[in-house]
């Protein structure tokens, strides 16, 4: 890296940070209430969350000119290892979600489709491939990958998707293959199998980063990841209170750092501050909706491009999404992380995500959440783009309704493709569901 290039990068980062700070201060100064009085007051901290995520992408823009290597990884990849080697880490799934909420996803997906990628493929994958093809993104610029890491603990799709990226960028692809868990516990050979893959990944990542992995740094990152995950779990558990202080829809937005900045000290600080604000809301009796009457569980990914609409349709009837299996997935594994044995515990942790376990396990998780959060019903988002999450939902819906006596609704949509979302149909189905609930 040349000296002037580094200087330009430093200036760019300083300028970018100043702009993001200004945006935050402006947002904090704006009126605190939403347009109508359906929802509770917005979180004060959301402006800071936005700044934090903005700074993350800003850093990426200048990663290469600062001599850092870049890894693109799946949401369930063992990122601690890469963080400890000072990789700048891009999560195409998170970027997809940003495009979804910014309503720019459809435009880039059509670029991928025009290049021949079928509309039957995952909308995150199409958003990512489309972005790689045309370069349009709401985050400024995404640095190209020096390394790709795909972990199959969320789906097999990532293997096929990342092979496409490997060709496009001529970058090496590290695959972490995690055997599916049919039973409650991972058999020892499965843990050993993943552990060996992680051990084999170390020299590859070291060679690309040009750095040596030290146990001390790895432990430090694992410790930060564990603390942040614990805090995130606590954030969600604050919703045991009535009224719930932070809806699952708000959690969908605030979860960005725990996914893409896990292992960073700022992430720990952010969730500690969020917890403080929630405690304040609880003390003042502030809820996510103005008049909470019914508390619901959400299953599957969010519908990124309709978050606000869904919050308002539900909120108007006093219904609030109190918990979701999706946001829960980034907190529930915290106890498995052991910073003293970072690699071994990672092998176990990354085998246990909800999507790598049986449909029965998901049903049990939902049942437990119904009790823990005292919920009245469940909305299961049947996500056209996420088959592993959606498989089993018809049976799960029936079980929840019959065995637990909780009205459960199957809502067909897609997490990132607005062309698979029928406005009127969703409104109708939700209205009928809310009537059954008796809101």
């Amino acid at each position, binding site marked *: 890296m040349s000296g002037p290039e580094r200087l330009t990068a430093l200036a760019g980062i300083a300028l970018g940070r100043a702009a993001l700070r200004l945006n935050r201060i402006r947002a904090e100064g704006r009126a605190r209430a939403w347009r109508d009085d359906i929802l509770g007051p917005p979180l004060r901290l959301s402006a800071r969350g936005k700044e934090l995520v903005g700074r993350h992408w800003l850093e990426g823009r200048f990663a290469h000119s600062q001599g850092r290597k870049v890894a693109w990884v799946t949401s369930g990849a063992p990122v601690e290892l890469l963080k400890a080697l000072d990789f700048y880490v891009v999560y195409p799934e998170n970027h997809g979600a940003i495009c979804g909420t910014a309503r720019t996803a459809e435009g880039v997906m059509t670029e991928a489709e025009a*290049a*021949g*990628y*079928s509309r*039957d*493929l*995952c909308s995150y*994958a199409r958003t990512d491939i489309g972005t790689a093809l045309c370069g349009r993104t709401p985050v400024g610029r995404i640095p190209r990958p020096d390394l790709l890491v795909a972990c199959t603990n969320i789906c*097999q*799709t990532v*293997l*096929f*998707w990342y*092979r*496409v990226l*490997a*060709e496009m960028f001529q970058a090496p*692809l590290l*695959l972490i293959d995690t055997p599916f868990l049919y039973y409650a516990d991972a058999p020892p050979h499965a843990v050993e199998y993943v552990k060996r893959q992680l051990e084999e990944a170390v020299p590859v990542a070291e060679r690309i980063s040009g750095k040596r992995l030290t146990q001390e740094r790895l432990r430090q990152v694992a410790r930060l990841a564990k603390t942040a995950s614990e805090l995130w779990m606590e954030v969600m558990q604050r919703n045991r209170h009535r009224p719930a202080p932070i809806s699952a829809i708000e959690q969908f937005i605030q979860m960005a750092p725990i996914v893409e900045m896990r292992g960073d000290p700022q992430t720990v600080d952010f969730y500690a501050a969020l917890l403080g604000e929630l405690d304040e809301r609880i003390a003042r009796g502030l809820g996510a909706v103005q008049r909470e009457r019914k508390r619901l569980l959400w299953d599957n990914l969010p519908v990124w491009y309709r978050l606000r609409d869904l919050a308002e349709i539900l909120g108007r009837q006093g219904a609030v999404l109190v918990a979701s299996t999706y946001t829960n997935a980034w907190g529930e594994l915290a106890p498995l992380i052991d910073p003293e044995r970072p690699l071994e515990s990672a092998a176990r942790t990354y085998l246990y995500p909800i999507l790598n376990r049986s449909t029965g396990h998901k049903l049990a998780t939902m049942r437990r959440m119904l009790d823990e959060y005292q919920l009245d019903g469940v909305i299961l988002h049947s996500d056209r783009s996420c088959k592993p999450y959606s498989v089993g939902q018809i049976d799960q819906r029936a079980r929840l309704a019959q065995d637990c006596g909780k009205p459960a609704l199957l809502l067909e949509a897609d997490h990132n493709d607005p062309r698979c979302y029928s406005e009127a149909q969703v409104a109708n189905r939700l209205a009928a569901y809310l009537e059954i609930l008796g809101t």
Partner: protein
Amino acid sequence: MSGPPDPTRGSPISERLQYLKGLAGKSGARGVIFYDVKFCEPELFDLPQLRAGLQAAGIPSLTVEVDLNDAQPHQVLTRIEAFVEMLT
């Protein structure tokens, strides 16, 4: 395990492309018909780069989407006929 490159086993797309080009060369095939099952992502993800690579090697291709257990519409026959005419 020594079969042709296979997306479900993680073979790189470039290996599949090499293999396809080799097959076409050995057999004297002048075009490739991709017969892809709807929703089969291991195949669908590979398709654009395989087709582009074949095109670059002067081998035209056609994609036919199949839904298992569904008969093909006559339209598909017409497309295959047109593809064959283009090759001859």
